[in-house]
């Protein structure tokens, strides 16, 4: 099954992927309408691709520790969730979800990611 592999250690935080996605799906440049967002945590950037829509927040909230950094799970979570403003279409309030840019997958975000942080793999 094709998947997008994310290597956050290569991500430069340039946000070109966000614009690639919003141009493809919304026809305009606007990170708030993209199905991929890049978040900075300390010195590291995490690209997060929108997953399924949930209509209520989780009841259990966790922080995860990797090395000496503590990360907020909500930030790394892929859900389009009422608890956070990401992956919700700014103008209409519709939830957003990555569709791999069609069948077969032709991911715009991967095409514009020059650092190698995003990669389309098939396994």
């Amino acid at each position, binding site marked *: 099954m094709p998947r997008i592999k994310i290597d956050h250690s290569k991500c430069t935080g340039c946000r*070109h992927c966000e*614009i690639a996605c919003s*141009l493809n799906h919304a026809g305009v440049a606007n990170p708030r309408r993209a199905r991929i967002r890049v978040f900075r945590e300390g010195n590291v950037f995490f690209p997060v691709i929108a997953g399924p829509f949930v209509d209520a927040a989780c009841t259990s909230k966790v922080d995860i520790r990797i090395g000496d950094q503590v990360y907020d799970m909500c930030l790394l979570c892929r859900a389009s969730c009422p608890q956070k403003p*990401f992956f919700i279409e700014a103008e209409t309030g519709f939830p957003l979800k990555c569709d791999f840019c069609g069948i077969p997958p032709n991911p715009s975000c991967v095409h514009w990611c020059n650092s190698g942080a995003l990669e389309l793999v098939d396994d």
Partner: protein
Amino acid sequence: MYGCTGRCLRVNLSEGKHSIEEIDPELLDKFLGGRGLGVKVYSDEVDPQTDPLGPENKLIFVSGPLVGTGAVTGASCNVVTKSALSGTIVCAKMRGHFGAELKFAGFDMIIIEGKAEFPVILSILDDKINIQPALECWGRTTSETEEVFKKNLTDKWADRETYLVSIGPAGEKLVPLANIVNDRLLSVGGAGIGAVMGSKNLKAIAVKGSHSLSVADGDRFVRVVTTLINKLNSAPLTSQSMSAWGSAFLVGLCNQKGVLPQKNFQAAAFTESKDIGTEALANAFALRSRGCFACPIACIKKTDVNHPLFKGKGMAPTYWAIGALGLNCGIRDMTTIGMANMICAEMGLDPIAAGGTVATAMELMEKGITSSDTLKLEFRFGQGEDLLQALTLIATKKGHAKRIGKGGEALAGEYGAPGSFMGVKGLPMAPFDPRSIQGMGLHFATCNYGPHHLYAYTFIDELLNVHEELDPWSTEGKPELVKRYQDMGAVIDSLGLCNWPLMGLKFNNFVPMVNSCLGTDYRAEDLLKIGERIWNQEKLFNMRAGFDHTHDTLPQRFVKEPIPGGPAEGQISKVDEMLPGYYDLRGWSKKGEPLPETLDALGL
């Protein structure tokens, strides 16, 4: 209107009021946007004789039409004002993410007027425009300002999307060497703008928004951008050198060619290049790449500077920092250079201007023109602690450092040795020795903004031979080269792009991207014409501010004293030989004034 938002925010700090205006589409036709628009609006609204630090001066932040649209390297926001250091018009380039976020917040341009009664922060968050007291932030370094501001945001997610520009203590104290710092320690080129922001009592601007930017022909635009990314990826300089080291890769090369100045431009050679090249950089710092908005090159290098003050949040030095703060002060220890660079970023000092000023003081002291007793500070070439101490004191305007903080020209003038100041129009020179790279020398002499490399990347052809193989020592074809690069730079800034892609792309490659984004049908010549118009507009402002052809010159050292040793031994700057040809090409009189017919042809 494609690309642009067409809106401008005017903030009057004296009255605490703001208004939203439409941008005249005719101005965009004539000046593209970005730097061109900023310069035009600034020259129309501000008296050239105005005191840069007075409330009548204005400060303009303006993003180009391509910024935020996904155009390759479309990240650049320009800051236009009158420099507190040189008194010329200045258009500093600011990359990072602020410019794009400003567009998403719904504005192409912010015009700041007046002076606030007490320190304030301007925030434009999701269409809520607020002038709020700076309270806890005032007095803090730039990265602390960002942290404190974000901590106080009530929405827990907002800090993820908010971008800031701020001044450090140097700007607050109105030190003329101060500049503005953007997006976590990215210095904005152009000295003297931080003091202008400080004089308005404006500590920072924060933006965030969710407006959409439309492009004219989306399908074609996406195809063109993809091609450009691939092109950049196959060019060795952009895909390897810049990506791996940032501009610091130039150090070794400039060293070999005898372009790298040393000890306040008294020499231009280094034998042990190993301890200053990329290898030394890699040994001193663990580098991580960071990209400005929509940039596939990602030349910005983050690192951990090993010092308790800076808790692992640093920028690795660029070529300009290594040259100006390091070798030009006789210092080659990378850790010291990194520290000095960090002090500049945190305190909000311009590395080139601050480095140049310290180097001038060092020369004055070495030659015995002044002494540590008079200056109450030690300045010795090669002594890292002198540099670090001086920078900290200049930024906080403590004690005797006040005098030095006025800049190298004032300092050298005070001791009757103006020849020890290596700069033009009051601005210290970027670290290229104009004797061994003639085109750059001509640019330094004629640039409207003082001797700054950022406004004409002639070294791309003179040193790196990317598009043309030119001999750096010869003057042949240099006036043409300089004019072309100056006009090209004006276009690129006005569109809101970065100049570095020119190391992998031709100027013509940008044209389809511009047209598909903006829905125009420019040819490369049309764009260059606009660039020329912008250059002349800036020139006109400077003329009215009191600058003439006598300011288009280089320090005497470069025309009188040949380089004493190294690979470029014996070279001398032939700037006076090239000047008439340059004026001619520009359609200017022998006195460097645009002729009426030139202005007519440009529609000025």
